[in-house]
């Protein structure tokens, strides 16, 4: 199909080519800048701790370990099992504390409450505390990201 009149003049084509290609060039430079400025946050895949540090825990006791740059909470339940949580409130990322006399986790920032199994029971948090998987291998306690069920 041959057009009767051109869609644009040669000058417009050239100007469009120049402007458009310069814009594309600038756009291609934006990606490396963005990639540089927003580094990927790396959570550790697993953390290995010496089990000896956590042997003498009483039931209902909570100890802190390092999960990357966040606190991890290791809790010995009443039935003797060990659970690991990421000790960060699911509302707005404040660090939570364990109140042993109330058997609850408490976030002081906006008064969020979790029960002794990490389930959210009061305040703004809408999801339970994140759990981590625990394995004891010989002398080591290996804590990994919880596998999705």
């Amino acid at each position, binding site marked *: 199909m041959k057009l009767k009149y051109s869609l644009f003049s040669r000058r417009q084509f050239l100007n469009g080519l120049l402007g458009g290609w310069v814009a594309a060039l600038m756009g291609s430079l934006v990606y490396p800048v963005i990639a540089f400025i927003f*580094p990927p946050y790396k959570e550790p895949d697993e953390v290995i701790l010496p089990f000896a540090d956590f042997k003498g825990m009483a039931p209902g006791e909570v100890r802190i370990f390092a999960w990357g740059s966040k606190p991890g909470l290791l809790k010995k339940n009443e039935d003797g099992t060990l659970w690991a949580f990421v000790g960060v409130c699911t509302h707005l990322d404040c660090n939570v504390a364990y109140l042993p006399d109330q058997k609850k986790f408490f976030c002081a920032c906006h008064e969020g409450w979790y029960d002794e199994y990490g389930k959210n029971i009061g305040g703004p948090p809408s999801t339970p505390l994140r759990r981590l998987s625990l394995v004891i291998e010989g002398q080591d306690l290996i804590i990994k990201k919880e596998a999705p069920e």
Partner: protein
Amino acid sequence: MNIKDLGPGLQNWLDDRLGLSAIMDFMKKKPVPQTRHSIWFYTGSSILLFFAIQVITGFMLILYYNPTLEEANASVGRIMTEVPLGWIIRSVHSWSATFMIAIVFIHMISIWLIKSYRKPREITWLTGVLLLGISLFFGFTGYLLPWDDLSLSATKVGTDIPRSIPVVGAWVTSLLRGGEDVTGDTLTRFFGIHVCILPIFILILLAIHIYLIQKQGMSLPLKEEVAKKEVRNIPFWPNFIYREMIVWLILVGILFTIAIFLPPSLDRQADLMAAAPEGLKPEWYFLFLFQTLKIFPAKILFFHGDTVAVLLILLGFLYIFFLPFIDNKPTEFKGKIITWSGYAFIIYAIIFSVWSLL
């Protein structure tokens, strides 16, 4: 409302408030003379291009750099290994510094040789020489920031040189170092100078320099001015800008290619107690000064060789700084000698730089 009206509409909105059309009219009318020497006009905007690249890559690097004695080297290491494409950004910053200082030297030499500093452009020259000094100081302070053995030793030598100046020498050295020796305090000081103090000064001086160039217009080489012939001009916008863009594109291409294939590496953290490493040398733009200091013997008559050398270098700098006032009769024989001194400076700088590497 047509989408075609969006562009002009926005332009008019801004123009009503900022008066930008006055600037555009000025740029369209500003004549750029086309003579044999007009090629050197491209050096000015090329410097601005590399300076802009330095600012942008500098903004990015400062997000991760840690200016403390314990973490400086490690943070640069993290930039190179953990941050995505960090090694390229650091490489571009390092090479762009080299390119910028090289073109600053070419710019100054070209103006020296065609004598653009004649009346009324003396202040433009003075601000320009100060800009050269600031650029070199940028390079000197930036070189220490990775805090490895080589940069520590180079800084020790570099900050020791002013000590040879009589009367104020020791004071200048301790001002630069933040104490008697090069320590973590020196790093803090150099970092502050590199990212805060010098940028403010360079922006002020650049503003004055560029304002004066616009106000006084482009200079004519001596021959054309004397002959008073009609010189062919082209308007700055868009004719000269299109030509400048071609130069910028080529320079950016060369910069990226060199930065990707010859990136700088990072040595281990500096050890304040270790002996100076072998093969110690400053950045390339200081090599000729380094060699000049080396050739002077320890004692000349009653004076320390160092003192004589440093005073000679200072004298040379003052000669360059006051060149417009020294060259008050550019058309006569004195003017020719000053032109020859420009060529002599080029030859001296190249020979001494190469000599210091052998």
